[in-house]
């Protein structure tokens, strides 16, 4: 890739600009991937509606921000989306007895379409944006010669805080540890008195919450439209697989890698094909190394897919 950039005479500033846009979208993909992982770890379900949390959070944040101060609007968006996460678990997942993987796949796909169509009818098909957290769309910071929107720093900062906070949550709090115990061995966890069923609900809520927060943070940069959830979900899933399903630390590295790959693909590919890049990565990784770059091949062969 650097050679093709060199032949096009890309300056360091432009290179840095690509780099920043790559890690910005990459950090979003990592957050979605972590959302996938949280639910996957406690339930073994891939929640195809993960991308919808992002858009739903953004939409609610935008609506609330018209009459509430921004921090309250974002908090409201996170709480409502958490409620939707809990509702999905309650309505569609909690009462199924030993459902097959195929059934769960189809159910979460159905849920994602229902959320998308509800958003279309509650709001409309228009593209919306949340206001910038600080400054406006024309304010920019000059870093190492590249001009960036302050929102980029917000996105990177919020992603970092989410990753660190989740790590602390899973290590230090009782609920976090209980969720990890469930992902490790659900029967053993239940024998220790952990309410495994409640942990599943928590995982849906947590996953929805970080999705909504990320959706609010990215909205000023990429805008929010009702049908953008599925493309985001497939990229997040690509990242989750790339890092090894269930491994959230690896997901951060994989997310940044995919974001950078996409950003630098713009130098060699027409814009219309950019979305195909991540899907091609997904297919290649599924076909040749489904355990992910950092995953254990034997361990993943034993998992129930």
């Amino acid at each position, binding site marked *: 890739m650097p050679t093709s950039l060199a032949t096009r005479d890309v300056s360091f500033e432009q290179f840095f600009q690509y780099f920043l846009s790559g890690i910005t979208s990459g950090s979003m993909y990592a957050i979605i991937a972590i959302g996938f992982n949280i639910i996957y770890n406690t339930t073994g379900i891939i929640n195809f509606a993960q991308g919808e949390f992002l858009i739903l959070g953004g939409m609610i944040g935008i609506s609330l921000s018209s009459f509430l101060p921004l921090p309250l609007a974002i908090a409201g968006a996170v709480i409502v989306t958490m409620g939707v996460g809990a509702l999905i678990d309650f309505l569609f997942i909690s009462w199924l007895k030993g*459902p097959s993987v195929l*059934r769960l*796949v*189809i159910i979460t796909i*159905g*849920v994602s379409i229902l959320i*998308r169509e509800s958003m279309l009818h509650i709001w409309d098909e228009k593209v919306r944006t949340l206001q910038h957290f600080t400054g406006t769309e024309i304010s920019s910071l000059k870093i190492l010669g590249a001009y960036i929107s302050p929102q980029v720093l917000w996105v990177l900062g919020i992603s970092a805080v989410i990753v660190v906070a989740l790590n602390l949550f899973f290590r230090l709090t009782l609920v976090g540890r209980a969720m990890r115990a469930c992902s490790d061995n659900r029967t053993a966890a239940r024998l220790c008195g952990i309410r495994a069923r409640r942990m599943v609900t928590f995982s849906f809520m947590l996953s929805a919450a970080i999705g909504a927060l990320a959706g609010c943070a990215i909205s000023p940069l990429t805008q929010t439209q009702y049908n953008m959830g599925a493309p985001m979900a497939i990229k997040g899933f690509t990242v989750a697989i790339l890092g090894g399903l269930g491994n959230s630390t690896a997901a951060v590295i994989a997310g940044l890698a995919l974001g950078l790959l996409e950003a630098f693909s713009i130098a060699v590919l027409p814009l219309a094909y950019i979305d195909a890049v991540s899907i091609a990565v*997904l*297919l290649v990784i599924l076909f040749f190394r489904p355990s992910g770059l950092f995953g254990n091949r034997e361990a993943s062969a034993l998992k129930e*897919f």
Partner: protein
Amino acid sequence: MHPRLRKYIPILAVLLLVVVIQLIISATGANYYLTQLTMSAYYSLVVVGLCLLMGYAGQISLGHAGFFAIGGYTSAVLTTVNLMPYADSSAVEVLERLGMVLERQDLYGNTLLSFSPWLACIAALLITAAIALIIGVPVIRLRGHYLAMATLGFGLIIYRIVLGTGFLGEADGITGVPGFPLFGLEVSGALSKRISNYYIAWVLVLLGMLLAMNLIQSRVGRALRSIHGSETAAQAMGIDTARYKLGTFVLSAVYAAVGGIFLTHYNGSIGPSEVTTMKSVRYVAIVAVGGMDNLWGALLMSILLNFLSLRGYFGSYDDAVFAAILLVIMLFFPDGLLRAPGLRNLAVLREKAAAALRSSRSRGAEDG
């Protein structure tokens, strides 16, 4: 009746129904319904193919709209490309002598020279089969979530390619696709040919059903069912599971392509809306509501739902309706609507009654 012929009864019954429906529609002067029934029939070819893959081989595909599009777009490109600038080249001359190119007039009276629909059709089928084979080899090794995501990704890539490629018409698609000559008839959207096209579509669907039924009642079908039951057990019985799964994947892709090719010629156009993920999900929803391994159920539901959708009964809730159907079926009737608990109990009762009858008869025989 000879048991071998018995399996043709449902095909003949449906054919009779098809004729009766046409007569009623034409008698009431509502011929416009035939257009949607014809389109539904072509979509049903995709559903029948997917039913073989999902219901019998047990493999989900969320990318069948991609195969539909590969068929439709290949045929559309080849029959609308203008070879006039190369008309004097020897290659085109050879093709012309072989009857593989056709001359026609466009709307503005210009002469166009394009590949003949038959050649385009064969090329489209070969290309679809080849792509399905290439994609299929790695895809069928995957299961569950991974299989769903891989096929979804395949469909999305086709969608992106269609949207981003100039000669595929980008967001506008390809229009002006000529009719398809078929033994003196023609597959086209001309109003005067509505009735003949209705029959062409239905004969194709019933041929597709016949092939599918023969397949599942053969050695292949039994092998597929055993794979669905337990892949490990099937392997232990010496069944080459990978080959059967791959074969079914390619065959179901070809079914989708046939639907795509003929619908494109019928509509005279194809666009990116045929390639969206939602289209693929819709096919899956129809197979699910039909009962997964129930070809007739899938066909019935396909005609019903596609017809209602094409007539616009679902309005702006079209996608939501299909999602809701999918959810209700998967939540409450995972074995399909036509095999709902009540009906299953009925079947059990009938079997019990028959068994009781048999035993009382044999007892009667002993007494006598």
